[in-house]
């Protein structure tokens, strides 16, 4: 066996705190190591050439690259050695950057740690076996979860690219948060005017199958072959018959239903079409408020419906779809108002959220675009905007910036002046974050042309005094306490992960961060991929994002799906479990523990029962290997021998 070791300087990233030359010298002394060297940038083209040449020149048959994390470059170097004629699994990487040079201060200790880590990799690579992928057919349909602007963009791009798309939307209409906005920054163009056509396209696209008011129940399978169970929630209206005429909504006597679309700014009917441009434009009953459900009698809508679409007996329905890739665009949520007792959040009706204000501004909103105070329906003359309500607030567990509030506050201040010319807006802010194209100019316009008074400081509390709300804050630039007697207060409440984000992630086997946002594969270079192949991200599900960024990600995710589906067959990962039929005793404990149902019972010719692995289903976790009492089932590339070789390399009594 002739192992070659290549130690990367990574400029000064590694060489700065690890003596790489000494490490190479030490490695040369290790039995089995035929060649060891250090190189400035191993991942560069000349760096990779060096490996290829050394393999030929030194007749190397196994390679260890000591560099960055294998999560970064394992694939790169596998390809390199494959090009030089070695099986790609004859590569091991030693992570001496993320785990050593970047986290240890002491060069001597780092160097020793690096040498030992590389020795472990050498020990392992000597146990490695060649592995060969097989290929399998893929289902070129794509599931898009979430019908907001990011999800619709992904669905439309995939559809236009010729893929069949299954689009699942939790609420009764597509459109997401953007459908609720009045105007968009920094152009002040009407949100629904630019979104509406997209929504219609989604409805009319012959490649897109829309499941509205539906949720993901369960997902099984792997890249190329997913089986998705979708729960179509009961609407109590037969959508094949409903024409969206709206007669039911007009006549419904339950007038105090909570309006989810309008974030409760005004009540709606128990049977409703959420908004005039809804897609699909179908009615739905809210059983929490419908008299037929709460009191057991009413039936007005059933009597009035011209097509007889009402069905109070309707049940949820589970449907199954088969797809090969998934785009997750499940959007975001907003922090609850009751997290702000000092602002009277939830207690004072005239303290509202930014999205609620958006509905008050909107011509198709509950007030038809007239700004009025929820308490007494009078027009406010003094409006206070409070930015960072929850954002950048560690005490509420939200240390991050919500990304777009600074911009929409500027927009709302401008629109307030447009709607009520004799009004005065105040904006309490800590920093104005406006790095987009034309964004900073926009926030300046709010102040220069629309007279919004920006006050640099946080609001400490809000209390009612007569009909006014007294907003007590600081102006840190003046170094004083300030008070504004406001008619209406708008809180730019913090963006959170969408409700249920964690549960969805668990169904998809993708990771999420402490706040519930989904984790991309690489923060810079793989921003829409996840660590689960075949699952892609788009929009604010990954982190707070404005419209242009969400649309961009929707298209990016679609491009990734189209690239994945450009082949008819995919290569399987050969690092799967294998059964040694000679030593297997047929206890089938592995079958019980396999999380994927990848293990079957198999009868050999002699009648002996053994376990057998379905290679395409096995995901390579190795739970079976640790379960097997006789070591008969081994996870390739992570066998007992391979891992123990690593242990033995550093633990020698």
């Amino acid at each position, binding site marked *: 066996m002739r192992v070659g070791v290549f130690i990367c300087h990574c400029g000064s990233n590694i060489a700065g705190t690890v003596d790489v030359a000494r490490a190479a010298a030490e490695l040369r002394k290790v039995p089995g190591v035929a060649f060891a060297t250090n190189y400035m940038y191993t991942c560069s083209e000349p760096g990779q050439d060096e490996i290829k040449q050394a393999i030929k020149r030194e007749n190397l048959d196994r390679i260890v690259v000591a560099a960055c994390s294998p999560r970064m470059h394992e694939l790169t170097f596998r390809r390199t050695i494959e090009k030089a004629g070695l099986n790609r699994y004859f590569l091991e990487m030693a992570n001496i950057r993320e785990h050593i040079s970047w986290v240890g201060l002491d060069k001597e200790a780092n160097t020793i740690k690096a040498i030992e880590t590389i020795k472990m990799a050498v020990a392992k690579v000597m146990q490695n076996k060649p592995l060969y992928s097989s290929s399998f057919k893929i289902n070129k349909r794509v599931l898009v979860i979430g019908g907001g602007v990011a999800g619709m963009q992904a669905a439309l791009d995939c559809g236009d690219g010729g893929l069949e798309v299954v689009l699942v939307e939790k609420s009764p209409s597509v459109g997401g948060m953007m459908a609720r906005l009045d105007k968009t920054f920094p152009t002040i163009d009407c949100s629904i005017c630019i979104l509406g056509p997209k929504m219609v396209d989604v409805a009319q696209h012959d490649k897109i199958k829309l499941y509205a008011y539906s949720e993901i129940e369960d997902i099984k399978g792997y890249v190329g072959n997913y089986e998705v169970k979708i729960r179509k929630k009961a609407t109590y209206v037969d959508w094949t018959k409903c024409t969206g005429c709206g007669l039911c909504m007009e006549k419904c006597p339950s007038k105090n239903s909570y309006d989810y679309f309008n974030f409760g700014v005004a009540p709606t009917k128990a049977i409703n079409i959420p908004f005039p441009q809804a897609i699909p434009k179908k009615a739905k009953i809210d059983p929490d408020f419908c008299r037929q459900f709460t009191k057991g009698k009413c039936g007005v809508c059933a009597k009035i419906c011209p097509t007889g679409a009402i069905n109070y007996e309707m049940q949820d329905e589970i449907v199954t779809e088969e797809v090969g890739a998934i785009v997750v665009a499940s959007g975001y949520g907003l922090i609850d108002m009751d997290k702000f*007792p*000092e602002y009277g959040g939830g*207690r004072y009706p005239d303290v509202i959220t930014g999205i609620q204000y958006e509905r008050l501004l909107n011509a198709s909103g509950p007030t038809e675009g007239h700004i009025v105070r929820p308490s007494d329906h009078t027009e406010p003359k003094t409006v206070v905007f409070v930015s960072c309500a929850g954002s950048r607030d560690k005490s509420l567990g939200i240390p991050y910036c919500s990304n777009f509030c600074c911009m929409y506050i500027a927009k709302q201040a401008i629109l307030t002046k447009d709607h009520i010319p004799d009004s005065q807006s105040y904006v309490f802010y800590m920093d104005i974050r406006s790095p987009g194209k034309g964004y900073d100019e926009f926030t300046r316009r709010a102040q220069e042309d629309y007279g919004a008074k920006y006050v640099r400081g946080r609001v400490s*509390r809000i*209390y*009612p*005094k*007569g009909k006014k709300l007294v907003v007590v804050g600081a102006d840190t630039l003046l170094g004083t306490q300030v008070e504004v007697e406001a008619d209406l207060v708008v809180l730019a409440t913090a963006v959170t992960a969408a409700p249920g984000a964690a549960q969805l992630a668990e169904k998809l086997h993708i990771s999420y961060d402490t706040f519930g946002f989904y984790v991309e594969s690489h923060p810079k270079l793989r921003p829409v991929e996840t660590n689960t192949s075949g699952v892609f991200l788009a929009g604010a599900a990954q982190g707070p994002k404005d419209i242009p960024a969400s649309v961009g990600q929707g298209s990016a995710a679609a491009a990734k799906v189209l690239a994945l589906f450009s082949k008819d067959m995919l290569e399987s990962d050969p690092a799967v479990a294998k059964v040694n039929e000679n030593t297997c005793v047929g206890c089938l404990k592995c079958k019980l523990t396999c999380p994927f149902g990848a293990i079957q019972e198999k009868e050999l010719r002699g009648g002996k029962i053994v376990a057998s692995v379905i290679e395409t289903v096995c995901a390579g976790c190795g739970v079976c290997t640790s379960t097997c009492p006789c070591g008969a089932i081994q996870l390739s590339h992570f066998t007992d021998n391979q891992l123990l070789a690593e242990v033995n390399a550093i633990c020698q009594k």
Partner: protein
Amino acid sequence: MAEKEYAYYTGCSLEGTAVEYDMSMRQVFKALGVGIIEPEDWSCCGSTPAHTVDRVFAAALAARNLTIIEKMGTGIVTVPCPSCLSVLKRAHLGMTQDESFRNEVNELLDEPYEGGVVPKSTLQVMLEDVGLDAIASKVTHALPGLVVAPYYGCILTRPPEIAQFDDPENPVSMDKILEAVGVKVADYAFKLECCGAAFGVPKRDMVNRLTYRVLSMALEAGANCIAVACPLCQQNLDLRQGQVNSTMGSSFNLPILYFSQIVGLTYGLSPKELGMDKLVVSADDIVRSRITIEELAQREANAKAAEAEAKAAEKLKKAKAKEEDTKTEET
């Protein structure tokens, strides 16, 4: 209710300027069957002044009392004064959470404190241990016409890590207790605004300005009385109300009662026992307005009957009018 015994740390103020808080608190506990024992030979907790000297020193002054109480074996000490409570809790939490701090404090003491005492406000004991139902069950009298602004002051619920009780931004414990005894509680936005605390003596102008706001917001909320649970708040609002009037040109005449006094009044206890005469702004009108709940029920029944009568009369009138209408139509 099973009799439970608590250590009761009075605190210096309740022996002097806040003696009526002590009197009424003891009466209310007695009525509720809550046993209290005063720790023998307790000393001052050190309050704010000690905290300006040194943290270990301040904790030691408080911990001397904790040591005495620990030996009593009651487990819980209930404290009427929020300032004492805060100091005792700070000492207790500091000493139980940080070993080296505990050792430092114990070095200053004759006998060490081992951390076996839970300090609770009297408000917390009433709300959580006695319970609203039991509190309500002792009510014999009503105070119709009384609208109370419950004033908590700064440190009863703050900071939440120390107080570990009620909401630091919108406390409701006193509201609930007062409502349980049938008193009308105003929606008061200045529940927590600082009254000036211990600055009454050295910084009188400052305190007068702060109390002015607290008093005027109570009136704004429609209250005709403020309920407090803190001797310092009471002193600043009651004793200094005249000072406020002369410096700020106001004419407040707002009685400032301890919540225990109000509860005591609804229990039919005598004004004398509750120390009502100790208040500077007279609460005689409130005392005079007191009636038994039977009287109240009678009054309400009378009012209802009168209302029903009026309604019936109205109905009759309408019916007659209608009758006449139809008659005229017929003709």
